């Protein structure tokens, strides 16, 4: 199973949308850099991300959330918060990594 990385804001670019459309059930979606905004509750993207959680794992990089002032209390339920060490573990855990640039 692939670990898909998304580093772009879903409001600005189509990377997250394409990633969700083209990733298999059981795969992982890793949000970093400006991609972390997709992890927040209350946005126009929250429903799509919540739906993705029904058959995929979604992760968000906490240092990128903190830099951007995003409160971890407002991260969508079910998204796993990890630091860089956790990012490394995930890359090792999944069979390969696919970046949606």
């Amino acid at each position, binding site marked *: 199973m692939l670990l898909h990385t998304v580093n772009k*804001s879903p*409001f600005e670019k189509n990377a997250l949308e394409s990633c969700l459309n083209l990733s298999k059930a059981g795969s992982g979606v890793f949000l970093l*850099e400006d991609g972390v*905004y997709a992890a*927040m509750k209350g*946005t126009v993207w929250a429903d799509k991300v919540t739906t993705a959680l029904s058959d995929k794992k979604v992760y968000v990089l906490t240092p*990128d959330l903190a830099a*951007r*002032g995003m409160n971890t209390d407002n991260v969508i339920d079910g998204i796993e918060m990890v630091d860089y060490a956790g990012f490394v573990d995930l890359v090792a855990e999944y069979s390969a990594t696919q970046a949606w640039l």
Partner: protein
Amino acid sequence: MEGDVKKFMYLNRKAPYGTVYALESLEVVLIGAAFDQDVSLAFVDDGVYQLANNQTTTPNDGIGMKNFSPTYKALGDYDVTKLYVDQESLEARGLSVDDLMPLTYEDEDDDWAEKPSIRVVSREELTNIMDEQDVVLSF
């Protein structure tokens, strides 16, 4: 420089940290403040995230980049007092003005009363403000 005052707008549409545009845009604003022009900043789309409160970075724990958000708080002292924030951009991101930094300036025409610099505006208002500009610097 010369007698004429032009309307300068800085259009910010990108999130901070992911790219350098927000930071380097702010550097232009600070330098530009010395030129006594009529300055406005617009925060549209992901640009509204530039003003998010509680931005936190530390060199050894975190993304390893400098938190430059305190600089926005200095804008009032540079007489940069018109920060227009697109309401629809805020709403699409589940944000309200309470999630943004409380930026203020002292109004010299009103006995130095402290007033908010951030002005949340509708699309229609923002469209009208943009259309009046002489120079638009986009980031």
